[in-house]
């Protein structure tokens, strides 16, 4: 049995760990609320933008293809992986890495073997992970989480779009954790570029006869990049909210486990102390007996 002092030390160290995990849980909870608010804020904007875009494209002639809808020649693939900047968030990062690896093995094996696969990382965790494993990692957007405003995040989207326009990629996909609820995150794949033609799905709806200023083509050229940036931003926010959710559950678990451990340690501590007292009493009684019999 360990000494009383050793158990005492153990108890105080577990206690301070528990304090840290509890604090981290609280911080994650408040950050999660803010991230969720942002998601809610962005939704009406995205909805309206898509509605206008559909309306405009419905009345546009078919051969007018945006430069983001064109299929490019060289078959390069870009995968954008959203992870977190920091650890201690449960299986959040390892899930997305495993998911990405499976995705590459299953569907994009061809690109990998021909070195036509590039990875853009969001968050230092995925940056380190893929760099270490010898993937071609482009773009330095490891610290995108320092400022979660649209203003800041759109730079990353613009970077991809610029390189797509130059014809460096023929396809761009996003891989991120979608926020279902606090305890559940689902890894999802989303095609980013080239954009799909929305014309067919929406043509049943009656298009409103708008006046377009300065022209329909101009509006489409303005709106498509904007809606791409919003799509990227949504993926970013989903991932950020998922991260905080995952951290919150992980830290909640850790706090609970620490509590469990403390209970056990206190029991051992009391047992050891009682054993010491009993032993001492026995010695005294035995000593008195020995004196009496003399």
């Amino acid at each position, binding site marked *: 049995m360990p000494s009383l002092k050793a158990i005492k030390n153990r108890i105080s160290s577990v206690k301070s760990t528990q304090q840290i995990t509890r604090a981290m849980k609280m911080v994650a909870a408040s950050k999660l609320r803010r991230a969720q608010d*942002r998601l809610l*804020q962005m939704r009406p*904007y995205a909805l309206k933008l898509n509605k*206008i875009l559909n309306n405009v494209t419905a009345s546009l002639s078919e051969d007018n293809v945006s430069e983001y809808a064109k299929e490019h020649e060289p078959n390069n693939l870009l995968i954008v992986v959203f992870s977190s900047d920091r650890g201690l968030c449960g299986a959040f990062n390892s899930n997305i890495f495993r998911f990405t690896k499976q995705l590459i093995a299953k569907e994009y094996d061809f690109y990998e073997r021909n070195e036509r696969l590039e990875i853009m990382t969001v968050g230092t965790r995925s940056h380190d992970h893929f760099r270490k494993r010898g993937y071609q990692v482009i773009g330095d957007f490891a610290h995108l989480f320092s400022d979660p405003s649209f203003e800041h995040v759109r730079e990353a989207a613009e970077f991809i779009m610029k390189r797509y326009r130059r014809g460096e990629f023929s396809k761009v996909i996003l891989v991120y954790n979608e926020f279902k609820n606090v305890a559940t995150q689902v890894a999802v794949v989303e095609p980013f570029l080239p954009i799909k033609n929305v014309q067919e799905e929406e043509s049943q709806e009656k298009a409103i006869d708008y*006046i377009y200023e300065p022209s329909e083509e101009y509006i489409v050229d303005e709106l498509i990049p*904007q809606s791409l940036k919003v799509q990227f931003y949504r993926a970013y926010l989903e991932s950020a909210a998922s991260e905080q959710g995952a951290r919150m559950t992980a830290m909640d678990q850790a706090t609970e486990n620490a509590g469990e451990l403390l209970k056990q340690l206190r029991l051992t501590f009391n047992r050891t102390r009682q054993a010491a007292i009993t032993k001492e009493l026995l010695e005294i009684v035995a000593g008195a007996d020995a004196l009496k019999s003399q």
Partner: protein
Amino acid sequence: MHLTIITPDRQVFDGEVDSATFPGSEGSFQVLNNHAPLVSSLGKGKIEYRGPGGHQSVMVEGGVVEVLKNNITVLAEKIIE
């Protein structure tokens, strides 16, 4: 008529106005009650609107405005404070 100004980050304005002036990419224009349906892109400039709360304005950079059945929605790309 109802005016809503939103950015991806937040809602900037939501309320009733009598008139609104927008910095269209080809020059500024004003929208009054019962305007025909309109979609216009915006350049950099001031959105000015007059409502019960008096005269107000915000600086925007880029975006698009939709006017439909006395509902004006501004999707601003960026608000300059």
